[in-house]
């Protein structure tokens, strides 16, 4: 049995929580494309889901080594969106965390913020009308800037907390 759900997430961590909640209730995500998630009925708690932003798109040769490592570790890449990859691993194969220390978690947040911040700024510049454009388009830009600002702020706070800890902890 399969079902499709349309949903838009701007915060990947909330998206990850949702995919894991679905999996815990027996709905395993098997594909994702522009807000369209496809789920397959399975055993509850069979999979753990993780989402990651890579340095390069998964089709890029520079990603090949990392994808091979994921494959070796029993991690399945079931969907991707530009540089984002959607991953899952059977819970029977042990715990599934992509990062095991603060430094690498901070690097991941930085990578995401570096990607989102310019987008938010460009939309903000257009949105406040610093450039000649219509009022309707301006409000769309302003809305986009706000929508992007929310997750950026959330990632920034998490990164800051990790950096505070890394001043006293390894």
């Amino acid at each position, binding site marked *: 049995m399969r079902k499709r759900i349309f949903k838009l997430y701007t915060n990947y961590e909330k998206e990850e929580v949702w995919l894991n909640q679905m999996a815990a209730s027996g709905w395993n995500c098997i594909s994702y494309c522009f807000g369209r998630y496809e789920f397959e009925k399975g055993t509850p708690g069979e999979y753990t889901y993780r989402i990651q932003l890579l340095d390069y798109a998964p089709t890029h040769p520079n990603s090949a080594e990392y994808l091979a490592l994921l494959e070796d570790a029993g991690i399945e890449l079931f969907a991707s969106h530009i540089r984002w990859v959607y991953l899952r691993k059977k819970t029977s194969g042990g715990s599934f965390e992509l990062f095991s220390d603060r430094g690498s978690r901070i690097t*991941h947040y930085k990578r995401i913020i570096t990607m989102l911040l310019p987008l938010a700024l460009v939309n903000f510049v257009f949105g406040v009308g610093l450039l000649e454009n219509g009022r309707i388009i301006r409000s769309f830009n302003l809305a986009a800037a706000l929508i992007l600002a929310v997750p950026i702020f959330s990632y920034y706070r998490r990164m800051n907390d990790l950096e505070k800890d890394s001043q006293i902890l390894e």
Partner: protein
Amino acid sequence: MAAEEQGALTEAVYYILLALHEPKHGYAIMQDVQELTKDRLILGPGTLYGALSTLADKGWIKACTEDQSSRRKEYLITDLGRSVFRTELERLEELLTHGKLIVGSENS
């Protein structure tokens, strides 16, 4: 790199360098470290991959796979890496000595 400039290694880097005293590919490093630490340290693939590229850039390890087209590269510690590791061992020994000296080594 001068010894006095060398900071403490992260735990992940310490165990990766240790594991790479013999040639290994990424997943073998993960397994090795997990086994050695009895499941205490399970390296995340994101953490491991990031560390491997940084260590290779620094010249502390090098890829030693003959087949360059292979997706699974084997790595090995370099002479520079060995000297960094030895310096870290000495630093850790000093930490341990000082700790035991003042707090003692009672197993309470």
